[in-house]
């Protein structure tokens, strides 16, 4: 069982890489280099701020886009193209397929993020000419971004298990946007009454809370991160992804393939 999941994961990774996903790194590198050079000309004091803000935001956004666009294709494309037929006619359980895809996609994003991180640090070194201990916070920011990816991948798989690629992309992207404002949604829910409040609160807790993962601004200002926040975010990402994946497994288990 475990080996099958590993095989599916590595195959997913290979497909993604061959599908020229990693070319996005070139775009990323270009943006970051341009920014670093430009900023060096503009102002001496905020260049580091800009590099970190821009760099981390780009890592996050690029990754989310990749996660959505590859993730949505993972299941629905396989069903449409019927590559799934030859896989499921083997002793592979349907749930193993979902879990394997999930790890493959997440793995792709981790690798992608790793290369981007090198880019960010390179740009940082270029503008600051040295590293300070506070720069270690960037690792934490990157870790949180990866946690965001974990959630998005799980959601993309969930939507992909029952919906067409286009709809899945729309859903996943919408949830990402709403999730970024999840704090405000909960605040809004607290201000309403009656049925609306019930509905809004339910929605607010169902939507992934991405704002908690977004520490880009505070890291740019070298604010320390509370350790228990790290633990909580990790657990939250874990449980949320597990929720979405369980949903995907159940849906896929009962799906008649066309």
């Amino acid at each position, binding site marked *: 069982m475990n080996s099958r999941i590993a095989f599916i994961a590595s195959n997913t990774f290979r497909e993604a890489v061959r599908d020229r996903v990693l070319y996005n790194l070139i775009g990323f590198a270009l943006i970051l280099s341009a920014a670093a050079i430009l900023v060096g000309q503009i102002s001496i004091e905020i260049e580091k701020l800009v590099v970190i803000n821009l760099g981390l935001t780009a890592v996050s956004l690029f990754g989310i886009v990749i996660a959505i666009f590859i993730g949505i294709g993972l299941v629905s494309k396989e069903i449409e193209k019927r590559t799934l037929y030859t896989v499921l006619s083997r002793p592979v*359980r349907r*749930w193993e397929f979902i879990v394997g895809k999930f790890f493959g996609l997440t793995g792709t994003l981790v690798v992608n993020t790793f290369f981007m991180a090198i880019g960010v640090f390179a740009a940082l070194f270029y503008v600051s000419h040295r590293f300070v201990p506070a720069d270690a916070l960037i690792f934490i920011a990157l870790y949180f971004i990866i946690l965001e990816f974990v959630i998005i991948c799980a959601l993309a798989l969930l939507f992909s298990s029952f919906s067409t690629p286009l709809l899945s992309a729309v859903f996943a992207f919408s949830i990402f946007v709403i999730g970024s404002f999840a*704090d405000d949604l909960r605040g809004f829910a607290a201000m309403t009454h009656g049925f609306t409040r019930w509905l809004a609160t339910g929605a607010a*807790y169902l939507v992934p809370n991405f*704002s908690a993962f977004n520490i880009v*601004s*505070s890291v740019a200002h070298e604010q320390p991160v509370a350790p228990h926040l790290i633990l*909580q975010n990790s657990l939250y990402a874990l449980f949320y992804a597990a929720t979405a994946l369980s949903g995907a*497994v159940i849906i896929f288990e009962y799906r008649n393939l066309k």
Partner: protein
Amino acid sequence: MKQRRQVSIIAGACLMVSLAASALLLHHLDQVRAQATLEEVLYINSPKVLKRLSLGYEGLLADIYWTRAVQYFGGRHHNDARSYGLLAPLLEITTALDPHLIVAYHFGASFLAPAPPGGAGEPDRAIQLMEYGIRNNPDDWKLYYDLGFVYYMNLKDYPKAAGAFARGAKVPNAHPILGVLAAQMAEHAGEYETARMLWTATYQNTQDRQIRQNAIEHLRGLRVDEDVTQLQKAVTRFGERTGRLPASMPELMAAEGLRGMPLDPMRHPYKLMPDGRIEVSDPDYLPFATKGFPPGYKPQPKFHYDEK
């Protein structure tokens, strides 16, 4: 078929557990990160920058900031905060993103100018906010009202208040009260009646709960001040007539030729103290009164949503 059911049951259980766990974690996270949404305000408090960052969705962002401003103030107020440093930036950002979000100006008029703990204690920024609002909405008479209100209530600058009310009265479809207030400023600035007119007008011109509650509490305070003053005068008259203090409230009432017991706006009876002073029964419920408190008592402005 058995396999499917087994897998579904396990996955279903996993789903329930994970969902509950993530909801719980989120709830816990909320307590820890109570001020989280406001961190950004600290870092990007330039409205111009924010406007550019909003990529054209200023209206939505303005609504979000407005929600945050309301929650910020309400939440801190509930916890008896001493300062509201972020209220001004929040309102400024809100109105920078959407200059026509009128309720934000009303909110600023009520809560930016008064000193803590009733407000942020920044009357000058409040004035700036009102003027900005007027510039962007020159035909909205309510904004002139708000401007005059701030001059009157918090800066005690009656001529400027009069000026604001007068400007507003000239706006087409302006409420007649503006003309009345402008005139009132001239002669009866310091009187209860004027203050009552203003607070009543504030109450009637808005739907916002917090602003209304604030106005009601102020009106109650005015009522108490008036009542205590009148009752105190009655005690003095009694003393002049009989040469002693009244033994009880009923005796005082009888002497005045009045029936029944005087009640404060919270329907509690006023007390006649042995030393002849008039006191309110429950000063905690009358935060904006200035008379009728026991000696040494300091009012704590607080909202009590659960009372009428």
